[in-house]
């Protein structure tokens, strides 16, 4: 099957006070048509920056290197004007905090119609009809009333639904959802994930689901990338990743979730904390917290290599498996 998105060697650098640091380091990612790919990792590991980079929505102090191909076209070569035509139509994004991307002075109806009138050339009547359909599609029951409401009058769950409606309005090929349910309660999260899965199926859309919650990944994704300190440290299909994780960090993460501690008095925990981007250690970035650290780990950052048919992993423990396709990091 063809890839909708192919990201190769994506590296995002921020400069602050004359110092530059890599926040996303050599990210490679392919997303097939209709596929859901998860990106998991703890806060600060670069998930949001990676997705903003793909949307070309970084703040001015950030610069991007690498290649981002959407249906074969390299997005990094596009001008801002060209990007504006693509955003929403080809590739759309949902943000963690919907209020930041909804305009507080426009009604829900106005905001949703705008994109349709701009991208699809619809007139008022057509766009209104379509907006009502969209609101219903994302599970808003009183679409007629909500159409005239302002964002601040909606609950968090409703706003997130409006965001989803807005994101799918022009049938994008790819939807990037950055922690779409993190700010929501579990029952509302269940509703939203349900809606997203349904819509994805209906539209045959590809999805990148960014989250720190392995449960959300298990529920929604086909494949997962685990990020740690700006780098992908493991990639596999969901089942393999959750059933037989390869990287010590992924193993630790899965074991640390309370749900997996059934009956045990103490939880597994990973010592230490995530380093900041300007303090990434020289060798393996996980080495200061790793139970299996070896001398080589302190000297050299391991490359991301195939461990077997199913998994790629960035760890010196799997040195022997290195014969195959190296993507160096």
């Amino acid at each position, binding site marked *: 099957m063809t890839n909708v998105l192919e990201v190769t060697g994506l590296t995002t650098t921020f400069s602050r006070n004359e110092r530059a640091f890599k926040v996303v380091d050599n990210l490679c990612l392919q997303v097939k048509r209709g596929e859901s790919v998860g990106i998991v990792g703890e806060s600060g590991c670069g998930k949001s920056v990676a997705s903003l980079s793909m949307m070309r929505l970084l703040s001015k102090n950030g610069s991007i290197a690498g290649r981002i191909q959407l249906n074969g076209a390299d997005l990094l070569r596009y001008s801002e004007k060209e990007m504006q035509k693509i955003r929403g139509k080809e590739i759309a994004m949902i943000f963690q905090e919907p209020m930041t991307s909804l305009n507080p002075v426009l009604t829900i109806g106005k905001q949703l119609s705008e994109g349709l009138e701009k991208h699809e050339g619809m007139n008022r009547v057509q766009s209104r009809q379509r907006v009502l359909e969209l609101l219903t599609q994302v599970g808003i029951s009183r679409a007629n009333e909500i159409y005239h409401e302002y964002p601040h009058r909606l609950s968090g769950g409703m706003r997130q639904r409006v965001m989803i409606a807005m994101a799918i309005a022009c049938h994008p090929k790819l939807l990037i959802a950055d922690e779409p349910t993190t700010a929501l309660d579990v029952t509302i999260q269940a509703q939203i994930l349900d809606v997203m899965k349904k819509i994805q199926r209906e539209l045959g859309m590809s999805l990148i689901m960014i989250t720190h919650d392995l449960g959300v990944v298990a529920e929604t994704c086909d494949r997962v990338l685990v990020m740690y300190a700006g780098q992908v440290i493991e990639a596999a299909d969901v089942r393999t990743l959750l059933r037989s994780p390869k990287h010590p960090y992924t193993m630790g993460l899965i074991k640390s979730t309370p749900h997996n501690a059934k009956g045990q008095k103490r939880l597994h*925990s990973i010592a230490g904390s995530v380093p900041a981007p300007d303090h990434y250690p020289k060798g393996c970035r996980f080495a200061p917290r790793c139970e299996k650290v070896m001398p080589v780990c302190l000297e050299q950052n391991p490359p991301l290599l195939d461990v077997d048919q199913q998994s790629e992993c960035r760890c010196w423990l799997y040195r022997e498996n290195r014969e195959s396709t190296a993507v160096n990091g």
Partner: protein
Amino acid sequence: MKTPLLQVKNLNKKFLVGKGWFQQPSYVHAVHGVNVTVNAGETLGIVGESGCGKSTLGRCILRLIEPTDGEIVFEGQNIRSLQKADMQKLRRDMQMVFQNPFDTLNPKLTIQHILSEPLIAHGIPKRERAAMIEETLEIVGLNKSHLSRYAHEFSGGQRQRIGIARALMLRPKLIIADEPVSALDVSIQSQILNLLQDLQEQFSLTYLFISHDLSVVEHIADRVAVMYLGEVIELAKKEELFQRPMHPYTQTLLSAIPITDPDEKKERIILTGDLPSPSNPPQGCKFHPRCWACMDVCKTETPPFTEADGRLVACHLYTK
């Protein structure tokens, strides 16, 4: 049976909202007729969705905000009638740990200063303070090299350790922990949960553990109270609650937890609609507009919070 460490009886808290000149005053009944007991040495978990009144309940128990009515009995004494000074003394025994330690740790003060405050407030002589601070810091996994630093120099997990050290300073009997791990990453969250459990054993602490995260509560609590729109709607031993939730809302809540096992398929209950506004809650059973088991009686009559099958539950399904 021993008297419980804490008894909360018919506690209510109403907040006045809508205060415009020509507006009728309206109220949010944030905590509504709550009855819970907490036994010495146990952990009572309080779960429920955002806005259901968990934090308000916790704050009322410590009288950080004044309840509208009801009783709070701590070690047999009704603390609602205590004067300010006596209440202040009692705070030695009852402490709070907050969700976001950053908000509650003054950024202009060093850790030394922050940890001295409770000691000064309770008249601990200066010569004893340093040793107590150092000891407590080590207990929570920090050390005296951290004393001269400011809160913003610490990671989220370390800040929560400082928040816990502050609460632990005077060796309280009860700690009310309001979402103590919700702002932390999974790998850090488990460190803090382990720490809280170790401290409980070491100092025979009693916890009221507030969280919206059901798997965290399942791990740490002995008994669990589920809240919905200001009311406790089910209270049971942890194992019983998680294995066989009785209230339809508890069932929904448990079914909504995403699980990391790709092969464990569970029957998910998807609710329609949002949480109703707490200033205008539905009549009868407050859950009835979203309940799939709703009967006629539910729309008009509030189900009593009564014993059914060895636990407490407020639902007409179990009142016959």
